């Protein structure tokens, strides 16, 4: 729309003229854009308040985090540039970081896909049941994600003395002879954390899946049946999932974000630092350096590593989801 007027018959008049031409085109382009932008003054005005806050509390922190990761910074003094030293320290010297990185990836690989699958599976199961019942089940299944972990309740349930409920039940049935220290023993901490996270994971993506399934027109299923689909699994793979691909992508983003941000559930269950750092995650390591030790440069390097992991896993999962129904 804006390029037409500047396409001139002098296009073959030599390199200098061509360059001038390009410059002129860019100028005209900018002028045109500026005119359009001026016409949309009201639109910019509408966006402005949100955008200012978004930039101040999301964009600036991300950029700042990346810049600070190359510095030594303790808040009191001006940041000092130290190159890649923080990253060397992270991957070479910091054994706890390596441990927490391994834990984070392990938690993400287990809870991300499993919570995603459970959400999808449950949404699919309740899709055909009568409306009132579906609403009730939706509310009941969503309730745990509202509870924000409820770690104090789980602490009582898994408590290590004989009044802990799980211990009491197992003792009574004679399965164990002495109480197990669930939340102090690294062998038990990790499965318990995973369990609690999965319990509270039927959240935003679950609602999105329910809505996506509800939005599919029945005629697609009928058409599918005509085309020779014989069982529910085929129907799910060839009809349902391809039609709700947008929701699948949205749910994936939400799941990945959630599963890489595990932290508060761990501290809620085991206290600030879990035994042997067995459930220590990158987020907790970041908080430890950022808000307790005030090593902002180092903490920023940790955050940057986490960014990179999250973005790349997001891209990988997007590719995977685009294969659905093939």
């Amino acid at each position, binding site marked *: 729309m804006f390029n037409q007027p500047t396409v001139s018959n002098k296009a073959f008049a030599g390199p200098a003229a061509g360059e001038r031409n390009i410059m002129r085109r860019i100028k005209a382009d900018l002028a045109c854009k500026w005119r359009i*932008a001026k016409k949309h003054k009201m639109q910019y005005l509408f966006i402005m308040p949100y955008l200012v806050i978004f930039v101040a509390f999301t964009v600036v922190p*991300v950029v700042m985090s990346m810049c*600070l990761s190359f510095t030594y910074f303790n808040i009191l003094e001006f940041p000092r540039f130290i190159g890649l030293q923080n990253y060397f320290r992270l991957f070479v010297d910091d054994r706890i970081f390596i441990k927490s990185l391994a834990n984070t990836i392990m938690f993400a690989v287990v809870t991300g896909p499993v919570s995603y699958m459970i959400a999808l599976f449950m949404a699919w199961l309740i899709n055909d049941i009568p409306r009132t019942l579906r609403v009730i089940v939706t509310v009941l299944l969503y309730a745990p994600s509202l509870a*924000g972990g*409820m770690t104090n309740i789980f602490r009582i349930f898994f408590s290590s003395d004989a009044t802990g409920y799980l211990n009491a039940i197992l003792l009574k049935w004679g399965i164990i002879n002495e109480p197990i220290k669930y939340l102090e023993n690294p062998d038990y901490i990790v499965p318990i954390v995973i369990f609690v996270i999965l319990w509270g994971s039927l959240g935003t993506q679950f609602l999105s899946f329910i809505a996506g399934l509800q939005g599919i027109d029945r005629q697609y299923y009928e058409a599918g049946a005509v085309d020779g689909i*014989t*069982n529910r699994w085929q129907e799910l793979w060839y009809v349902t999932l391809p039609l709700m691909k*947008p*929701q699948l*992508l949205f749910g994936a983003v939400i799941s990945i974000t959630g599963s890489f941000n595990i932290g508060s559930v761990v501290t809620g269950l085991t206290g600030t630092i879990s035994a042997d750092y067995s459930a220590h995650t990158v987020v907790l390591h970041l908080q430890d350096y950022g808000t307790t030790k005030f090593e902002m440069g180092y903490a920023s390097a940790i955050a940057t590593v986490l960014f990179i992991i999250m973005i790349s896993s997001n891209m990988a999962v997007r590719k995977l989801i685009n294969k659905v129904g093939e």
Partner: protein
Amino acid sequence: MKIMGIKKKRKIMKRRVSRSVRGDIALYLFLLVFVAVMMLPLIFAVNMSLKPLNELWLFPPRFFAVNPTLKNYYDLFRLMTDSWIPMSRYIFNTFFITIAGTAGHIILASMAAYPLSKYKFPGSNMIFRLIRSSLMFSGAVLAVPNYLVMSTLGLIDSYLSIIIPAFGSTLGLFLMKQFMDQMIPDELLKSADIDGATEWDKFWKIVMPIVKPAWLTLMIFSVQNLWNTGATPYIYTESKKTLPYALSQISLGGLSRAGIGAAISVIMILFPLMVFIISQSNIIETMATSGMKD
């Protein structure tokens, strides 16, 4: 009418593939068990909160309270009024933060979503793509530089340090924009233009009423997020701290406080649960448009 009748008949005749009574029974049984398992911790919490002290110490412990009592709830309020800072203060803080943050978020996010959804102007695509990709980041990762931003802006140790960042939540804007894309016909806005409506009129009188389901959805997500705000590094004055923080301090008291701790959990979940139940159908309607195109 006739056509409708035929369509209906066809629907009845063509049952979807492999639906059987036996399958339905299995489905409901599975659902029953699954829901029961999911509910167990919540039921457990309610039961714990109703137990008198001697039942909390009982060995072997019993799942259900034998002599249910509201004493824990009563004790909780007494404990909190006797404490250094009265309970009402923490309750006020959390309510204030939740309501102010949610209201501001809904208004600002809708205002921003409207032009992004209905107009094309230089930068609009880039802005939306930026916001969409930041869905991947969460508060924990941004906490450190956020502290610096806030201290630069002088927001440290004020309610604003929690409220203002909540205005800029990206999930809300994303959902709002997607909903507007699908639910607001361009013709409607054009006809309003012909009637001489200003941008603000169009936004406030036409768009906002239509997107009511979306703002109820933003409400539940924002409430859920703000209501559970516990201790943050941005606030250190005791009287400005939130309810979840105060409650977490109480429940650290061990088993003797277990009943009170459970009462806290029950109270904490009730408010967002009520909001969710009220706005449930609107949320599903909004989430139908939540999909992402690659």
